[in-house]
């Protein structure tokens, strides 16, 4: 059994700058972390591997990104992934979700046999959640999104619970297939010292465009159907009516004022 976990290195969200020309993020000089939502995917995969007989299930982390995304993959290994592959090439720069899922799917195909792909729900920088289902489409495998529990895995099938707007759907998917998981699925562990040592020593292969079976037309900015044409700051000019009641009577009056404000706007 082999489980593949595509992960993304993302900037800390608070201090990101944009390249006004290309509309892409300037990643230089910004602290990078593993996409927090991907940690749940890594954890879910490791738990499934731990639940299988020893040596029968391996977890492979892959990431498409600049060379420094290697750090993210080493973190996945430190948590418990067995190996990792970095997919990196200048030709991939500026990829939108369509082009990114194309390359990741090609990398997964190159890995050979696999049973399950587990993705985080979305990345906290792009915030689209499109790459997971996109990978499934390129690989032509079934997919279940928003999985909050993996109930069982084996005999060519996987039973999961999916969080939807009005409840939880229980689904059975035949393998190979893809899952995107939400936070409820498992609480991510911290890397152990031994894990960190193993991660430092691990040999992580780098694959470029030439290593993958993917049409040159589909790569990077040129291969991406969508284009960012303008970026601008939202105007959040709200005039806050801020009241600071000093005593009990003032609290009562202020609460009354708020109730009146809401009632006046038809919000009650």
């Amino acid at each position, binding site marked *: 059994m082999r489980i593949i976990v595509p992960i993304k290195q993302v900037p800390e969200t608070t201090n990101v700058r944009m390249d006004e020309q290309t509309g892409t993020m300037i990643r230089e000089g910004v602290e990078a972390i593993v996409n*927090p939502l991907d940690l749940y995917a890594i954890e879910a995969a490791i738990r499934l591997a731990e639940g299988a007989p020893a040596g029968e299930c391996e977890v492979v982390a892959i990431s498409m990104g600049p060379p420094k995304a290697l750090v993210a993959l080493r973190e996945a290994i430190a948590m418990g992934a067995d190996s990792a592959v970095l997919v990196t090439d200048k030709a991939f720069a500026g990829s939108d979700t369509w082009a990114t899922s194309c390359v990741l799917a090609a990398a997964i195909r190159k890995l050979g046999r696999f049973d399950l792909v587990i993705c985080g729900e979305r990345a906290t920088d*792009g915030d689209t959640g*499109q790459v997971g289902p996109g990978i499934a489409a390129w690989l032509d495998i079934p997919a279940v999104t928003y999985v909050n529990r993996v109930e069982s895995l084996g005999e060519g099938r996987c039973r999961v619970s999916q969080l939807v707007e009005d409840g939880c759907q229980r689904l059975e998917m035949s393998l190979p297939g893809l899952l995107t998981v939400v936070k409820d699925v498992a609480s991510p562990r911290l890397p152990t010292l031994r894990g960190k040592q193993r991660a430092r020593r691990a040999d992580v292969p780098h694959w470029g465009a030439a290593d993958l079976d993917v049409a040159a037309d589909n790569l990077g900015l040129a291969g991406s159907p969508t284009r*960012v044409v303008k970026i601008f700051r939202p105007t959040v000019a709200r005039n*806050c009516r801020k*009241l600071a009641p000093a005593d*009990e009577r003032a609290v009562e009056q202020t*609460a009354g004022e708020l109730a009146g404000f*809401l009632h006046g706007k038809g919000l*009650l």
Partner: protein
Amino acid sequence: MKSERHSGVWILAEQSAGRLGRVSFELLTRGRALADKRGAELTAIVMGAALSDAELDELTARGADRVIAAEAPRLEHFLLEPHAACMCELIARRRPEIVIAAATTTGRTLMPYVAVKVGAGLTADCTELDIEPGTGNLLQTRPAIGGNILATILTPRHRPQMATVRPHSARPAPRRVPACRGQAGPDRTDKVERYRPAEALLAGRVRRVGFTPSGEQRSIQDADSVVAVGRGIKRAENIPLVAALAEAMGAALGATRDVVDRGWLSYPHQIGLSGKTIAPRLYVGVGVSGSIQHLAGMQTAETIVAINNDPDAQIFKVADFGIVADLFEVVPILIEKIGAAKAK
């Protein structure tokens, strides 16, 4: 798919147990505006097991020029493969120029899968859609990087141009003509087209084995009003106080990441970058400081109210009405005052 011969605006209506969701009518508002600007026809696509005439007429009454209903037992509940196959086939045959769906669990799963299959560009979670003068291209604007920046995105060459829009980011389209609920009007047959997709399209490798409704708890994304609780609530035992406020206001209960990480409320309540993005008519933050992560998930709410004892809390920067005070003093009185205001 790169081609010049695409026309028409499509919206993907959503149904549950044969009833159309409110989000379908919000999509009609978006779609109608775009179709009018583009001088194009607006088509509503709906997939389900069996849809009544009354439901389908509702779509035309609220602005759709045409309705295409794909009906089959396999389409009763959303399963990715059969829904995607039907959608792909319709797109290949009819060549729409624009396809819009809601950014729900359905839309956010189906659209990226279909976009890859048909070679279309897709933009997630748009807050604004418009037509570019001159080119006629779809201008798709969405928050990026935690909502600190807005990005406008184009799909210059690929067709269709696909986008998802956040639920509650547009008003539901009103009825334009009185809905002739179920009674065949003179032109329904022209406007509403039902068909049964070919068996081959309905195959899939995922089977639904059960469903547990979430019961009383309302989805924070569907609610008109949301009361969110932050770390200022201090302990799990205090949560019922805020729940009571939510109930008094007829609001759903949301939470910050802090509260969910501590296990005081479950993940479906979480608002923010790592939780849900909401755009209700009213948001009330109680003991919420307003981290960037949280603000990104709620700052497009129409009206924002904050109650926090820290006058410098970030949440006040995006609020319309703020009370700087101890929430434990304010909330019980506020519940009373709301009861009184509603009784008026």
